[in-house]
């Protein structure tokens, strides 16, 4: 089995540098790569571009990098829970590229699968379509979107084995599987790292071929944004 296991976040982020482009899994604070994000803060890499559906909250997730002004540009679909984000964006300190959520997911998936470009109806007739090729299919206008290019993908899975095979849990899955193999190097942190053969090959969500480095994460906070309960 091909060696992918690294000891910790520090080893996993070897080679991370200023000015790079990162992909980060997660929807809101669910399924985010908590350990890798903490290591990005610790390394204090600057001027980075982050492809992530959300931007965390003020004091958690990608909000931690925003606080330290490490991020040059965000490529996201929804950033509504973060006051510091809004301040940096409106003041012009932060470049922001807002794109439809499905387009974001599909551009990751395209990068993973070697599809350089595809057509989608999402965003036609809006700001999102500006400067993009429009083409009609089945009598309906579509816009051309490109696969993302990124240096690192930071992914959080539930379980993984030493061959890099991954299983995600519930809605913490979200963008994580689509980002595996979509960057030059995919770094995965898992809640539970097991031996090859312990995961049923029929129920692996992401095969190890899409993963370059895997490590056992620790101290997961898994913060809940909207705790809603019924009686």
């Amino acid at each position, binding site marked *: 089995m091909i060696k992918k296991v690294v000891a910790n976040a520090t080893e996993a982020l070897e080679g991370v540098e200023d000015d790079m482009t990162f992909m980060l899994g997660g929807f809101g604070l669910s399924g985010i790569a908590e350990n890798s994000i903490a290591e990005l803060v610790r390394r204090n890499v600057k001027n980075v571009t982050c492809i992530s559906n959300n931007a965390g909250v003020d004091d958690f997730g990608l909000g931690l990098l925003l606080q330290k002004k490490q991020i040059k540009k965000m490529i996201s*679909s929804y950033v*509504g829970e973060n006051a510091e984000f809004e301040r940096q964006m409106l003041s012009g300190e932060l470049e922001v590229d807002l794109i*439809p959520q*499905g*387009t974001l997911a599909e551009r990751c998936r395209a990068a993973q699968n070697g599809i350089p470009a595809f057509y*989608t109806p999402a965003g*036609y007739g809006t700001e999102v379509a500006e400067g993009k090729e429009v083409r009609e299919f089945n009598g309906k206008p579509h816009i051309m979107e490109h696969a993302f290019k990124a240096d690192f993908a930071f992914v959080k899975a539930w379980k993984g084995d030493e061959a890099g095979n991954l299983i995600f849990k519930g809605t913490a899955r979200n963008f994580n599987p689509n980002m595996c193999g979509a960057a030059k190097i995919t770094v995965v942190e898992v809640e539970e790292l097991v031996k090859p053969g312990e995961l049923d090959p029929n129920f692996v969500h992401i095969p190890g071929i899409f993963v370059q480095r895997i490590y056992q994460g620790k101290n997961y906070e898994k913060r809940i944004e*909207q705790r809603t309960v019924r009686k």
Partner: protein
Amino acid sequence: MLDKNGIAQRIAKEVKDGYYVNLGIGIPTLVANFVRDDIEVEFQSENGILGMGPFPLENEVDPDLINAGKQTITARPGASFFDSAMSFGMIRGQHVDLTILGAMEVSQDGDIANWKIPGKMVKGMGGAMDLVGSAEHIIVAMMHTNKAGASKLLKSCSLPLTGVKCVTKIVTNLAVLEVANGKFKLLERAPGVSVEEIKNATEGEMLVPNDVPEMQL
């Protein structure tokens, strides 16, 4: 005049047996509470669940199980989880039968704006552009006027668009309207609301049939 729950209750009547439904954040989320018990409906949340159930009991709360509004939820028997690419495949591929979402403005052509106020507020479009760009049946749930009293049903939207010519129906605190041939066609009045009141609150062109029934909830 309806409150938010009333709007949700009226929209629930549009939900048919066998529908897969995507509910946006805000009033649309409330619709689930009013769907009839005797029909089968599945709710999709675009962050990756089909078969969304009610909020969890205190001891069931799971941070790995939330909806698109980041609220903790439960999964019904027969539910499934999936990644974001597949989730938007369901939406883009028109497998979702009905989309209900909020709006800041709707135009008489069916354009919708709900993601940005230039220079002031930019939350992002989330999944809304994918939803309105693909769905064949889109209902907007919103107040008829904004906090300043200005109409949200316009000749043309002033805010950056989320989608063009896509809204099929609008349910507000005052009325049910359909987008038809570049006009708002008035279908129903909210209880106790007159056609005149609706006219006054609607900036866009409105088609008013001779008889406009009061809505049944």
